């Protein structure tokens, strides 16, 4: 079960499994972002390249306006996937 929420403080919170079937659900939230936003991965247990693609597309769109996504609590095998995909080059990972 995947969930994505925009908290009252303006932070995006991900949880569950972010697979290819969840792309539209994620885009419905991420496409509304217009300013620099933190994305909390604390409760995310799985992400595939489909999820990485949505995050990358959002980062590209925001960067054109001088804004960005900042990723936090990226741990375990998700951090390994980010490292292999060289997402450290295109995201600020706290």
């Amino acid at each position, binding site marked *: 079960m995947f969930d994505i929420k925009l908290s009252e403080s303006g932070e995006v919170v991900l949880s569950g499994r972010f*697979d*290819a079937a969840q792309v539209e659900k994620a885009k419905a939230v991420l496409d509304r972002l217009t300013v620099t936003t933190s994305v909390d991965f604390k409760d995310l247990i799985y992400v*595939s*390249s489909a999820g990485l693609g949505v995050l990358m597309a959002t980062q590209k769109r925001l960067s054109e306006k001088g804004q960005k996504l900042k990723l936090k609590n990226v741990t375990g095998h998700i951090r390994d*996937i980010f490292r*292999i*995909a*060289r997402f450290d080059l*295109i995201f600020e990972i706290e």
Partner: protein
Amino acid sequence: MPSVQKQFKRHLDSLVKVFDFIGQFVTRENIDDDAAGVVCLAVEELFTNMIKYEGANSNDISLELRVDGEVIIVQLVDHDVEPFDMTKRPDPDLGASLKDRKPGGLGIFLTQKLVDDVRYQYLDRTSIITLKKNFRRKYV
């Protein structure tokens, strides 16, 4: 050699059933969480590629999981398709700037980096992809 095999409809909605199928097998075989996660990711990447490149094909996709010692062997079989040798795809340019980064090819790249062996065969218009991933038993 413990093994299970199942056919899945060529649709993103099948992913839930695919993950359930893998989950039941890795639990039964006491496969560690890291290896189980890699198997889920690899199967998703290959399965969604088969949907993407053969979307008009009405044949189901076959997934087989086997354990040999402390190696999990995954085989995906796709009938009546054009060849698509994932092992010959160029790597994505991961050093490119954000503006020039492309999402394409990342799933295959991750799969090849995370599994221990990958083989592609194409016989009689059938693609057969075989992956191997070493694992540890969660408990004895």
